[in-house]
């Protein structure tokens, strides 16, 4: 007998010569197994189950009597089209080993997942006599697998949604970048172009292919290869100092001579875009041209207005010189008033031109060192001659030469003195203080006039601003202080006011005594 032979080879030797006792022991062992175990007889028709252990009864919910004699398929109930069944069928037909996960149903109809291992037993004649089936209930494992898969599906769905959102907002931003009427390019830390927007391509009449991947300095006919720009861009990454309003005038390929305004910023984001540089390029050729034409127009207009003014002034001066001896005070008054308002008209014409030039940044300053105290004295004297009611008193001194545009500084002082006289009609004195403070000269003009309210103090340096209650009582265009502040600012100094309503005002300005290295425009 096979079994006896097996036992003889030493694999089983529990109770020598007592096969019955050994058999019982093995049956107990099988019953103790957590896995369900069945044996079928392949030599009988339809391969019926001839043995099952207790675990199989527990697992399937069927009693032993309901199992023995049945083919295994009863466990699948009506769920017959599973792929696992085909695998089993093939293995049985070929007498091979197989392992499948198969849906089985307990007696009460509950589904359980069965990990089934089938192993054939081959007789001496080579025929498969039996199959051993080992079953494990893996329902719980299957469930967690399914949960995991569901979770994964959910996450994938979310990822897809988020990606879609991201893509949408990216496309949204992209469409903005492509629509703006400013040329934008991004360059990497090696100054190679990473991307360029439509406006850039259109402005410079280039294609994306010849732009992206090319070094900034190799673009076109090397228009951006400017030593100063190279330095600024090289400094951006380590220092994070942006390049602001850098002007490039160049004969560009395809589009000719243009004036471009460059602004560059380092990209601050951590991650893949870090240390890239965003470069915005604006074509200001036309704007500059329009500004120039406006300046030219005002230049010509003021010149043309001044020409007849010169003639009138000449005749008025001639009349003043040959006043008939018997002329009355009224006549003399008319003459001096005429002369005074001619000067005002002349100043207004000059101011208009100044405002235009300040706006376009074309106010030209001829900075030559001059004796500051002397300039103040001369300016005060000129004003004093024309003023009977006010006494202008100069106090202090600086004793320095100031590298500035003398005529413009005198213009500022004249304006401040005129204001002090104009807005303090009742008081008799205007004080001018000169001092040297650190490396600045400081000049203050103090009146005891109507004063300026705190709200107005903030605005009086704005163009065309006139303090509210002033408009009716005092004539003027409201550009004098604006020009003054701009002139002082262009000299790297400051102009400010301290004032109290009904007490008076002090306007002060400072000017650096040393010229700044880079102040030549």
């Amino acid at each position, binding site marked *: 007998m096979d079994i006896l032979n097996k036992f003889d080879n030493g694999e089983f030797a529990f109770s020598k010569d007592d096969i019955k006792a050994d058999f019982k022991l093995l049956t107990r062992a099988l019953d103790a197994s957590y896995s369900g175990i069945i044996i079928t007889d392949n030599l009988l028709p339809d391969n019926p189950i001839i043995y099952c252990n207790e675990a199989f009864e527990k697992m399937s919910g069927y009693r032993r009597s309901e199992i023995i004699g049945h083919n295994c398929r009863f466990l699948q109930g009506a769920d017959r089209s599973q792929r696992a069944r085909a695998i089993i069928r093939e293995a049985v037909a070929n007498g091979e080993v197989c392992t499948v996960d198969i849906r089985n149903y307990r007696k009460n109809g509950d589904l359980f997942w069965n990990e089934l291992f089938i192993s054939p037993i081959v007789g001496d004649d080579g025929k498969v006599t039996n199959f051993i089936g080992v079953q494990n209930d893996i329902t719980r494992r299957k469930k967690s697998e399914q949960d995991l898969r569901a979770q994964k599906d959910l996450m994938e769905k979310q990822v897809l949604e988020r990606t879609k959102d991201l893509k949408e907002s990216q496309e949204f931003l992209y469409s903005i970048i492509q629509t703006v009427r400013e040329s934008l390019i991004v360059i990497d830390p090696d100054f190679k172009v990473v991307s360029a927007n439509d406006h850039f391509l259109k402005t410079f009449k280039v294609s994306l292919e010849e732009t992206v991947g090319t070094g900034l300095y190799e673009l076109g006919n090397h228009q951006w290869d400017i030593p100063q720009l190279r330095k600024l861009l090289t400094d951006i990454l380590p220092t994070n100092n942006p390049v602001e309003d850098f002007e490039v005038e160049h004969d560009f390929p395809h589009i000719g001579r243009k004036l471009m305004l460059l602004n560059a910023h380092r990209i601050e984001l951590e991650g893949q875009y870090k240390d890239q540089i965003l470069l915005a390029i604006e074509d200001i050729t036309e704007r500059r041209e329009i500004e120039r034409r406006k300046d030219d127009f005002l230049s010509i207009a003021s*010149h043309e207005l001044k020409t007849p003014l*010169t003639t009138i002034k000449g005749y008025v001066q*001639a009349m003043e010189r040959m006043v008939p001896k018997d002329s009355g005070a009224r006549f003399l008054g008319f003459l001096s008033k005429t002369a005074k308002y001619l000067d005002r008209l002349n100043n207004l014409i000059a101011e208009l031109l100044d405002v235009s030039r300040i706006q376009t940044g074309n106010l030209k300053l001829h900075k030559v060192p001059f004796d500051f105290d002397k300039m103040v004295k001369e300016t005060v004297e000129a004003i004093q001659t024309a003023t009977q009611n006010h006494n202008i008193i100069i106090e202090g001194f600086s004793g320095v030469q100031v590298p500035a545009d003398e005529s413009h500084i005198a213009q500022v002082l004249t304006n401040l003195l005129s204001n002090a006289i104009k807005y303090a009609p009742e008081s008799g004195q205007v004080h001018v203080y000169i001092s040297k403070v650190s490396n600045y000269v400081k000049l203050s003009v103090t009146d005891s006039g109507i004063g300026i309210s705190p709200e107005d103090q903030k605005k009086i340096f704005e163009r065309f601003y006139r303090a509210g209650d002033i408009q009716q009582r005092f004539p003027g265009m409201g550009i004098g202080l604006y020009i003054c502040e701009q002139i002082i600012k262009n000299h790297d100094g400051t102009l400010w006011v301290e004032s109290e309503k009904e007490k008076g005002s002090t306007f002060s300005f400072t000017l650096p005594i040393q010229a700044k290295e880079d102040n030549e425009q």
Partner: protein
Amino acid sequence: MSNKKILICDDDEGILDMLEMVFEDSPYTVIPEKNSLNIKSIVERESPDLILLDLWMPVLSGDQLLRTLRKNPSTIGLPVIVISASREGRQIAYDAGATGFIAKPFDFSELMGMVDGLMA
């Protein structure tokens, strides 16, 4: 009475009239000229002692004219006072070789003072 001559060149008739009047009481003889193109020949013919020159004039501008005068050895040292209403007038005038500059509108005494100073 000296016989010194002042040549005045300005394209604006009002200015010319007015300047003629200004110098009526002066010891100088005034030669007014509206067309800057004629200045070269007048200078050759009349040899003025001083020129009052406007800057912005049609065809030949004051600074162009002044530059030609300065290239000519006979007029290289001729006193030329530029009178202009242009804001950049002073710079342009001295760059072109002016002896003096007076901004329009000008003050009689300033102009007279400068002329007298150069004629002395």
